């Protein structure tokens, strides 16, 4: 089984592997206005407009930053950008606040006291690199280079990935897979031989019927998706939202199905049964492109609307009516595959059901369905080959999880660090991901950290994980640095640039510069063979017939248009063992898993407890943005959504403060009550990313509650290692 379709893998490995270099001198990295002023002695007057791509979330829209009289003023969308179409989201607009954030890390730090005490000695960059290199050399000598692990989120992590591969480890993992979209992409890989990817291949703009399972588009502010969703709303597309909470998207829906949490698979299997038993599916498409229809038909026949009613809480008539509604719009109907999908531990099987229903309505390769994508092919820099690690990766020994793994297994790496098996992990690099807020069960993470000889955190703000570091390396924010080129799979292939707009305010440096410097300390300079990042970027761009000078001016360069769907001449190919869309999965059967998804019942909350659900707010990204004063200004704490009847029963009103206590007795910070007619009575909801307890995050300290603190329990998906996190129950503590 390939974990990423071969075609896509080849392209990705050719196009976007990492890399980079740095200037040998510490100064003069950024040619910003201040530097120019120092040189010329003249105050810069007027407005400069500099294109660069955003980093406020991971969608990476292209923007144009306005610098007024040498100071960063505002950021707007780049009209040439196919992701933003010239309009950013609030975080992109609020990127200004990332540059001016008073809580930013300002200089390299080495730990003085115990881990987590946040006591530091400020050091020079050279001292920091010396310290790290000597620890890394000792780990290599004592345990082997594979004993260093890397957790990374974001394109800038690529520079460190390159460095650590050169050093000799492949123990690299990203929470964007196991704690986010892993189950979905694994399910589609198994079914279609290709992933949904990000930016998602969903043609929301042209869909006539859109079904969302928990996808809270509009709160999840991935720009292109929101823009297309708004267009669909304006066009009067039929929208069906399945969610225990009336999300923003649900307020726009024709049908809102307030499903009991944890029973989405029951509804999906019932819809699949209706589409088949009532002969409503796309027969020609299913005949031509799919495998295993008869087995599917037999397997799902037991899932009737009457069976589903007590399970899901959705009335049989509404289940039928919505199935008919979806069928009515074939072939322009889309059941959105979702994104964050680590919910209950059987998530890949739910993803399979989403993949199967999309096959029945013939959405893959259809206008208004799941479109073709391609990439702007930019050859990688010709590096020397990496050393071959002597030991296999430690994050998934004996292939316990047979599927997934394209981005590594985060909790597998943590487990290896905790147990020393299959071999000890003694060093962690952490780039741009606040592990204490992204991995479930913070206690396990903190215990694992106690086994480390070295923890290096590279970040722009003093995140909670930085508080546990031995060395903290303060990175320049995206507006102050070059980064890797961005060329994702998308319906319109393009490449975009991140380039410095202003200088870093203190002693922050770009990630590529740090990796290059460290390579010299480690004797790995042959892996960083160019003089500076401009030379590196220009080399790559020239090999694709472009140039740095050109892209610096434009920000974005588009590739040729591609056929997006059958209507435009796209002919889909499916890289599965049968060459078809596998309704019945041959690879799952081979590995002993259910080849067709079966409904599994999840535990209900005990009396007096509520299932804890969490999600996003449009103006914040994870736990990364709460100290951004512009974004703090529009949302400075999260609230716990409690059904109004439940709140009344407990004597709670909107605006009251309570604490949440989970099934294991863990207490949250105090959090404001939102008594609302927008959520079921058996669950509560909070926005992820708040409730910071790092004292260095002055602007966000103890504002709101953290779902991560309360997620002590998680259920691992046996197929791909994703951590289902919607399995925690909370009760209310009135004493705050």
């Amino acid at each position: 089984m390939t974990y990423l379709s071969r075609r896509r893998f080849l392209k990705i490995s050719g196009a976007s592997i990492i890399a980079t270099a740095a200037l040998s001198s510490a100064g003069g990295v950024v040619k910003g206005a201040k530097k120019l002023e120092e040189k010329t002695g003249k105050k810069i007057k007027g407005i400069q407009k500099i294109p660069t791509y955003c980093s406020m979330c991971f969608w990476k829209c292209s923007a144009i930053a306005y610098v007024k009289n040498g100071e960063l003023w505002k950021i707007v969308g780049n009209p040439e950008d196919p992701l933003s179409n010239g309009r950013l989201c609030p975080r992109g607009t609020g990127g200004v606040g990332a540059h001016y954030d008073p809580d930013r890390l300002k200089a390299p730090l080495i730990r003085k006291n115990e881990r987590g005490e946040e006591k530091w000695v400020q050091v020079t960059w050279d001292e920091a690199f010396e310290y790290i290199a000597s620890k890394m050399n000792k780990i290599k000598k004592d345990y082997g280079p594979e004993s260093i692990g890397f957790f990374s989120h974001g394109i800038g992590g690529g520079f460190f990935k390159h460095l650590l591969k050169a050093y000799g480890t492949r123990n690299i993992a990203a929470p964007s897979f196991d704690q986010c979209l892993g189950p979905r992409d694994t399910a589609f890989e198994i079914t279609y031989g290709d992933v949904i990817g990000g930016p998602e291949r969903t043609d929301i703009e042209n869909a006539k019927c859109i079904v969302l399972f928990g996808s809270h588009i509009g709160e999840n502010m991935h720009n292109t998706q929101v823009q297309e969703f708004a267009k669909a709303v304006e066009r009067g597309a039929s929208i069906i939202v399945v969610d225990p909470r009336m999300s923003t998207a649900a307020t726009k829906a024709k049908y809102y199905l307030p499903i009991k949490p944890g029973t989405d698979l029951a509804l999906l299997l019932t819809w699949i049964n209706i589409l088949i038993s009532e002969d409503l599916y796309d027969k020609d498409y299913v005949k031509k492109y799919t495998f295993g229809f008869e087995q599917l038909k037999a397997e799902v026949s037991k899932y009737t609307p009457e069976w589903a009613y007590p399970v899901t809480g959705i009335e049989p008539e509404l289940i039928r009516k919505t199935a008919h509604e979806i069928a009515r719009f074939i072939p322009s109907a889309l059941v959105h595959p979702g994104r964050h999908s680590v919910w209950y531990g059987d998530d890949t099987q739910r993803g399979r059901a989403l993949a199967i229903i999309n096959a029945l309505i013939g959405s893959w390769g259809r206008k208004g369905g799941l479109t073709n994508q391609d990439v702007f092919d930019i050859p990688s820099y010709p590096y020397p080959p990496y050393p071959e690690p002597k030991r296999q990766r430690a994050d998934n020994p004996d292939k316990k999880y047979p599927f997934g793994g394209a981005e590594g297994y985060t909790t597998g790496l943590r487990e290896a660090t905790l147990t020393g098996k299959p071999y000890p992990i003694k060093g962690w690099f952490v780039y741009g991901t606040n592990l204490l807020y992204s991995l479930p069960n913070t206690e396990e993470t903190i215990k694992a950290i106690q086994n480390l000889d070295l923890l290096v955190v590279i970040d722009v703000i003093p995140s909670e994980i930085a508080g546990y570091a031995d060395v903290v390396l303060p990175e320049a924010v995206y507006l102050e640095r070059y980064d890797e080129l961005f060329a994702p799979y998308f319906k319109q292939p393009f490449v975009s640039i991140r380039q410095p707009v202003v200088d870093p305010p203190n002693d922050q440096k770009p990630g590529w510069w740090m990796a290059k410097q460290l390579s010299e300390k480690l004797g790995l300079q042959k892996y960083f063979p160019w003089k500076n990042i401009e030379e590196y970027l220009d080399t790559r761009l020239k090999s694709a017939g472009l140039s740095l000078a050109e892209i610096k001016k434009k920000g974005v360069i588009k590739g040729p248009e591609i056929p997006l769907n059958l209507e435009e001449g796209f002919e889909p190919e499916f890289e599965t063992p049968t060459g078809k869309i596998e309704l019945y999965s041959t690879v799952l059967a081979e590995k002993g898993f259910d080849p067709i998804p079966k409904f599994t019942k999840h535990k209900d909350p005990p009396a007096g407890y509520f299932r804890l659900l969490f999600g996003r707010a449009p103006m914040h990204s994870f736990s990364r943005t709460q100290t951004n004063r512009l974004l703090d200004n529009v949302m400075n704490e999260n609230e716990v959504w409690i059904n109004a009847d439940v709140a009344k029963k407990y004597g709670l009103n909107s605006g009251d403060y309570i604490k949440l206590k989970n099934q294991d007795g863990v207490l949250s910070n105090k959090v404001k009550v939102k008594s609302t007619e927008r959520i079921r009575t058996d669950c509560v909801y909070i926005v992820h990313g708040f409730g910071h307890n790092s004292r260095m995050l002055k602007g966000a300290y103890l504002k709101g509650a953290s779902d991560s603190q309360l997620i002590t329990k998680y259920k691992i998906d046996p197929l791909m290692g994703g951590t289902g996190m919607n399995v925690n129950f909370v009760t209310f503590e009135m004493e705050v």
Partner: protein
Amino acid sequence: MARFGMVIDTVKCVGCTDCVVACETENNVPVGFARDWIEQIAIGKFPDTHVEIRSERCNHCSEAPCVNCCPTGASHHSEFGGVVLVTHNECIGCKACIESCPYGARFVHPEGYIDKCTFCIHRVKEGKDPACVSVCPTHCMHFGDLDDPNSEVSKLLQKRKHHSLLPEAGTSPNIFYLT
């Protein structure tokens, strides 16, 4: 004379607050204050709840109580499209206008004068939309001359159901919400 106004489509608005953040950067609004904001109004019993999400700001009323009550004339209707503005150096910070505004649109700027939405008149004079309108990722906001029957805003009002805020206050607000 033109009568500038906004038409905001609550059906498309997702309440993301991009309009608010864009106003902050465009107009250098001090941290802790805002010239525009998002309201989410939920009516009815779950799951049959109706929710209206809308971006609010100064309504640039034609019958503006803030203008009528201003003792110095700092609050005034601009000749340019009837936009309600405050002349900073004529404002004595007496806050009568804050009391009189039924929409809570005004605040005391840390520099002592009363501040609020200007419809980004500096941008409009250059032929651009106000910042909030120009950034909105859902394109739910429209700006234009309500007295011109051929303007986009007028056409939207002819075509779609709409309401304004607190019409009973008699202020003749110039912001309309499509439903």
